[in-house]
């Protein structure tokens, strides 16, 4: 069964450093998402992406964040200058269509630790 993959599984970085989290969505999917879960809190939507553009973003997704589909398979989340509060589990998801009735398939997550 096709699945969403994410690398690395765990990333440790120093405050102020840039990080790039990588995701490979399911190959025939067109819509891509990032969510995050701070320890002990809810999974929160960050951004959705379609046709090489952001289709929706949350208040969390400020200028420090960016997303990119650099090639036909990868989907990345970049945090320009990490803060302590960026420490969280980051989940990538993809769906074939962007409609509400379509299932979003999630990857296993990348745990980001900012020191």
């Amino acid at each position: 069964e096709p699945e969403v993959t994410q690398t690395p599984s765990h990333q440790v970085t120093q405050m102020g450093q840039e990080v790039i989290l990588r995701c490979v969505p399911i190959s025939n999917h067109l819509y891509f998402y990032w969510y995050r879960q701070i320890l002990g809190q809810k999974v929160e939507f960050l951004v959705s992406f379609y046709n090489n553009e952001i289709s929706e973003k949350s208040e969390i997704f400020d200028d420090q964040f960016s997303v990119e589909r650099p090639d036909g398979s990868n989907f990345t989340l970049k945090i320009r200058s990490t803060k302590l509060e960026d420490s969280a589990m980051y989940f990538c998801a993809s769906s074939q269509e962007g409609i509400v009735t379509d299932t979003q398939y999630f990857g296993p997550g990348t745990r980001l630790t900012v020191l």
Partner: protein
Amino acid sequence: AQSVTQPDIHITVSEGASLELRCNYSYGATPYLFWYVQSPGQGLQLLLKYFSGDTLVQGIKGFEAEFKRSQSSFNLRKPSVHWSDAAEYFCAGFSGGYNKLIFGAGTRLAVHP
């Protein structure tokens, strides 16, 4: 504001016992509701989803959920729990034309042998 609430943070059941995990939603329009499960080291796996029609929906791994509009609930049930069901369970939903999921806080299920 749209929200999804899972009142129980942790639940422990004995293997073979029945299970019910609670989920309440707050939406103005018809909600689209989901249950996901996360096992350690794994991604969020969809168990089942509700869009419309029958209020009892069947999912994978023997799970089912019942949508009750009068109670704003979408509780997940399983008649007989297996040790492999130990995981974290998330209720989620969205409404209208949005395709971003709103998650509950999750319920961690432990299963005693």
